[in-house]
């Protein structure tokens, strides 16, 4: 895989070789402003799978995200950290257009998935969500369905006919390392599993749709340390195939699993960089205060 500058790739993808062209073509003021913002970071070269550009989000009249520009690297883990209410959950929910599901909520700006703005008029939010899967804070398997049906639910509810359901179930459950634990009781209710298992079941459910990006909104906050460790191992595994965004309150978790980390504060993006840079030599005072526990 050739590596290119982040902004250029967002414009030209899926053909990364055309990056120089694109960089030249791009000369709007906002573009150059953004470039200067990323260029002097220690991010190195990344391939963004998604890219937020001037993303603003509102609940009613209240602005909860203030013009966010942030790339989501492909086949890497991006952690979003920040104190409660800083807009990190809203940010990931904007990436697959789940934000607008809440009455009164709306988003402005652009979110590129490959080179397509998911907020373009002609784009169907439902299709975006199939490509950008989501795992929620609290495990939410469907209570009326068995383990097997939960895994297949993404396909079945979408009306996709499944040629070999058993293979899909096994493949998805193996991806989340749940197969050996549940293979003898696939017909039991999904809610009969432990919290950690339920969360991995929910991840399997998302993966059965073969998404390109996986958004995880505090996936471990309802889990004990052992279950958390399993999910983190899983994130390590999954990053080989997906672009992953993980929202977390747990700074150690961000340090453990993420390649890149974005620090949000009061609805704004304060700092984005390689995780080791964020945690060892942050450029912003507020970032340093937060990761050293002085506030938040």
């Amino acid at each position, binding site marked *: 895989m050739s590596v290119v500058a982040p902004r250029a790739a967002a414009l030209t993808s899926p053909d990364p070789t055309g990056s120089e062209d694109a960089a030249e073509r791009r000369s709007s003021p906002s573009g150059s402003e953004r470039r200067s913002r990323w260029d002097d970071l220690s991010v190195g070269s990344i391939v963004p799978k998604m890219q937020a550009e001037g993303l603003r989000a509102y609940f009613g009249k209240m602005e909860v995200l203030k013009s966010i520009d942030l790339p989501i690297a492909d086949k890497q883990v991006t952690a979003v950290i920040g104190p409660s209410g800083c807009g990190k959950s809203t940010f990931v929910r904007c990436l697959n257009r789940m934000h607008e*599901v809440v009455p009164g909520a709306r988003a402005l700006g652009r979110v590129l998935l490959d080179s397509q703005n998911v907020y373009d008029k002609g784009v169907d939010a439902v299709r975006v969500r199939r490509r950008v899967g989501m795992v*929620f804070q609290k495990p939410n398997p469907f209570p009326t369905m068995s383990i097997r049906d939960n895994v297949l*639910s993404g396909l079945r*509810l*979408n009306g996709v006919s499944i040629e070999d359901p058993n293979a899909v179930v096994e493949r998805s459950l193996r991806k989340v390392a749940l197969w050996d634990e549940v293979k003898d009781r696939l017909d039991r209710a999904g809610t009969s599993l432990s919290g950690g298992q339920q969360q991995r079941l929910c991840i399997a459910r998302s993966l059965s*749709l073969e998404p390109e990006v996986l958004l995880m909104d505090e996936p471990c906050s309802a889990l004990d340390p052992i279950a958390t460790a399993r999910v983190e191992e899983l994130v390590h595994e999954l990053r080989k195939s997906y672009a992953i965004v993980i929202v977390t309150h747990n700074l150690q978790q961000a340090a453990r699993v993420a390649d890149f980390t974005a620090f949000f504060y009061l609805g704004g993006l304060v700092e984005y960089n390689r995780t080791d840079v964020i945690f060892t030599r942050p450029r912003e005072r507020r970032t340093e205060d937060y990761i050293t526990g002085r506030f938040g």
Partner: protein
Amino acid sequence: MRSYTRRKLLDSLVRVLCCGAVVLALLPLVSVLGYVFVRGVSGLSIAFFTELPKPVGEVGGGIANALLGSLEILGLACVLGIPLGVLAGVHLAEFGSSRFATWVRLAADVMAGIPSITVGLFVYGLVVLTTRHFSAWAGAIALALLMLPGVVRSTEELLKLVPESLREAALGLGVSRFRTTLLVLLRTAAPGIAVGVMLSVARAAGETAPLLFTSFNNRFWAGSLEEPTASLPITIYTDAISPYAEWHERAWSGALVLVSLILVLNLASRLLLRTRVKAS
């Protein structure tokens, strides 16, 4: 220590009062059920369920036409009222904040309080006068109107009880709103909605007033849904106000059948609710 004794005493006193209130409240129910059973059970036989009523002076006969008529009218009412009510309930639960929904909700609440005789008169004006004859259809429309508010509101309330996280789970999987509502929300709430629907049906099953001017009565089998049709409540009513002792007996037995029918509906919904609670 004295305050402890006082508390104990007060506790027992309130407990006795509560138990007394329960007994007092149950007394009418138990005595009605008991009396209807005692008076009605002697008249029950196979013939009672399979034969037409006999004219005055003849022994035997039954209320088969009224039983069938009641089931017909009630069944039709369900076909008309339940889908409409469930759809309206889905609308209220899903788009409940719109101005239109506020009015629909208000209308449902007002409708729930309308006396049933008024509904009967309304359908008399709407259907019977325009078609110029009584019919099972008219009765069914009246009963459907009566069960509608219950169905609407119980559907709405039970859909609202489905956790938001399930809706998000489905939407997050790229499932359309329509399919999410149909396949996830309604399916999850289905047992509860069924209970609400059953209670509404049970309420409509015992209504007499709305049938008086709509399906009217018939001493014989109704040939079609376009004809006046006998029903249990109306048959009981006309038998009971008649001057003949044997018709009075028939009214008691008919009442027993009707009460049992409603009781079964109620108990079935309770049972459904209980198995549902166990499953979750």
